[in-house]
């Protein structure tokens, strides 16, 4: 009996059989992939156990519906993480190559046009000695680091790549992403303070100083988008843009303001005040050596990815594309790739800013934040309200 049911499980079982059990009401691609992986993986394990102990309970248990569902959810999380992780490495590679070319050099060159350099760097930082200074606040030192990296990874996993690639379809999706995003400066401040190093202390304080200059315009911009789409749900916002028009056209001011804010939010040049290497050595990361620093770097790119994704959601129509005649087959099959390409395009602007601009000073970023970004975002909001009230949009 068991043998047939196992082969049946491997061959004929599908997503449809699990719909009742699945946590999702609509089709979810990573869940589907995870189910298929579990079909092969779990089915193989069950078949092997069955080969040794015929007709045992474990094999039966492994291919039962609730267990399949449970393992599928775990595998789905891994799939989603792996995709965003690989895409972050791709963004790292894009930055290195594009920045190199802009500076008239070649960028990384190790394997696959330089892509394997990221893996090499990761391996190198992993091999390094784990240096922990003596006179630190141990608890906050470790928790601050872990939480900075953890929130970054969590954020990256929360970004939906399309209307079928998400973990949870929150009603307040955009708001939650923003809330978690704003957590990092606080953690950086704590981590900087805990290191008992003057450079990292100043770096941590600068992160807090930076935050009050970009966070408020960013939220006002968010209000504009939400007001226009009428929802916090990312799916709804994208669907609205697909239906009507990309928000970049009515909110062109907001788009550019948002890019500036997003660069500041992900703490990249020209707004990387908290790790200004010219004056503060490495800023708040000074005492984090070896793999800890490597993970912080990776976390930075995760946050850069999220910042780009936010710009794409709010202004560039998410995974939608204006249809160029005929069927939108590319949207049917590859909305995720469309979305990731857009993210890479926005990241190109980030890289361009890094190549062309020097780092700003703390008082200057406050000036820019309050005297330029703030009025611009309010103007943007006024335009949105005007459009809404007059019924144009």
């Amino acid at each position, binding site marked *: 009996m068991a043998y047939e049911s196992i082969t049946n499980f491997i061959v004929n079982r599908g997503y449809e059989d699990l719909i009742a059990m699945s946590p999702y009401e609509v089709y979810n691609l990573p869940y589907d992939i995870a189910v298929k992986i579990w079909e092969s993986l779990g089915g193989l394990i069950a078949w092997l156990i069955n080969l040794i102990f015929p007709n045992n309970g474990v094999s039966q248990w492994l291919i039962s519906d609730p267990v399949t569902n449970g393992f599928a959810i775990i595998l789905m999380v891994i799939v989603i993480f792996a995709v965003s992780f690989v895409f972050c490495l791709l963004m790292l590679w894009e930055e290195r190559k594009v920045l190199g*070319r802009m500076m008239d050099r070649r960028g990384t060159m190790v394997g696959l046009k330089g892509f394997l350099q990221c893996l090499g760097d990761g391996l190198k930082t992993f091999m390094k000695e784990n240096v922990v200074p003596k006179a630190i606040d141990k608890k906050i030192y470790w928790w601050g680091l872990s939480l900075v990296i953890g929130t970054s990874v969590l954020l990256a996993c929360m970004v939906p790549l399309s209307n079928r690639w998400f973990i949870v379809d929150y009603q307040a999706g955009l708001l939650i992403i923003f809330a978690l995003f704003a957590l990092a400066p606080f953690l950086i401040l704590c981590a900087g303070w805990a290191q008992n190093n003057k450079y990292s202390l100043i770096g941590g304080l600068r992160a807090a100083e930076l935050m009050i200059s970009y966070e408020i315009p960013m939220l006002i911009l968010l209000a504009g988008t939400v007001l226009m789409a009428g929802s916090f749900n990312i799916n709804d916002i994208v669907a609205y843009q697909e239906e009507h028009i990309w928000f970049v056209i009515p909110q062109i001011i907001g788009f550019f303001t948002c890019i500036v804010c997003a660069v500041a939010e992900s703490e990249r040049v020209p707004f990387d005040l908290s790790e200004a290497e010219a004056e503060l050595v490495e800023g708040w990361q000074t005492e984090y050596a070896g793999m800890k620093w490597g993970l912080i770097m990776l976390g930075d790119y995760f946050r850069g990815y999220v910042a780009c994704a936010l710009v794409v959601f709010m202004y560039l129509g998410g995974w939608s594309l204006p249809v160029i005649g005929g069927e939108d087959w590319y949207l049917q099959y590859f909305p995720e790739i469309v979305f990731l390409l857009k993210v890479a395009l926005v990241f190109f602007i980030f890289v361009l800013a890094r190549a062309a601009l020097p780092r700003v000073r703390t008082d200057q970023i406050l000036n820019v934040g309050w005297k330029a970004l703030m009025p611009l975002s309010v103007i943007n909001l006024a335009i949105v309200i005007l459009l809404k009230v007059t019924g144009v949009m």
Partner: protein
Amino acid sequence: MKYLDKYPKKFKGTGVIAPLGKVLRHFFTKTVPHRPVTILYPYEKEWVPDNYRGRPGLRFDRCLGCGICERVCPTTCIELVDVADDEGKMVKRPQVNLGRCMMCGYCAEYCPVDAMTTTTDYELAEFTRQDLIYDPRRLNFEYTTDMMEVHIEEHLMSNIAKGITDQPTAFYKTDRPVLEDSKCISCSKCAKVCPVNAIEMIVVGQNDKGKDIKRPKIDDKVCISCANCVIDCPKDALKMNEVL
């Protein structure tokens, strides 16, 4: 003034558009269609001209073993060592310790017979310090060209004052040792140390005990002004006469 007349500009509100545009244009017009300026060093190398001052080179056959290079070296990295020449005779030739060499090119410049040369060889890394010591045979460089024999083309100040400007000379063509007769003790050491055998001891008389009184006679055409005789003279009887 070329630059100060245009800057500082009054702030026109362009902000950061100019640098962004410049970098973007550079990206799309220069480095993407053409190659970047980076040279992939171990695989491609820059062309170096012949007068490049790499490690010193030695043309074994031309060298006289006079020791000028040893004395003129600022870091004392050159040392004269005994080596067998092609016929098996022991001769003195320079050995260079490249761990100390500062590539100033003085040895090539001051060599009276152009035996020491500069070379275009600049990849000199070795595993041990011992390997950095180049013996005279190893100093040989195959592709020596005319530019690598650095010549001194000095002009005498007296000539310039006279208006003669087309007679370049060098110290080894003009400077010759002169003897202070009263100090000489006939020891013939100068004749022994002369690398070109330009000094001949001539008997000029006999002293009270019946021994020969000898005085060095210097052949000005053969002398290369190496000053070995001057340095080795026990009584400082010889002095280098600098022609200016």
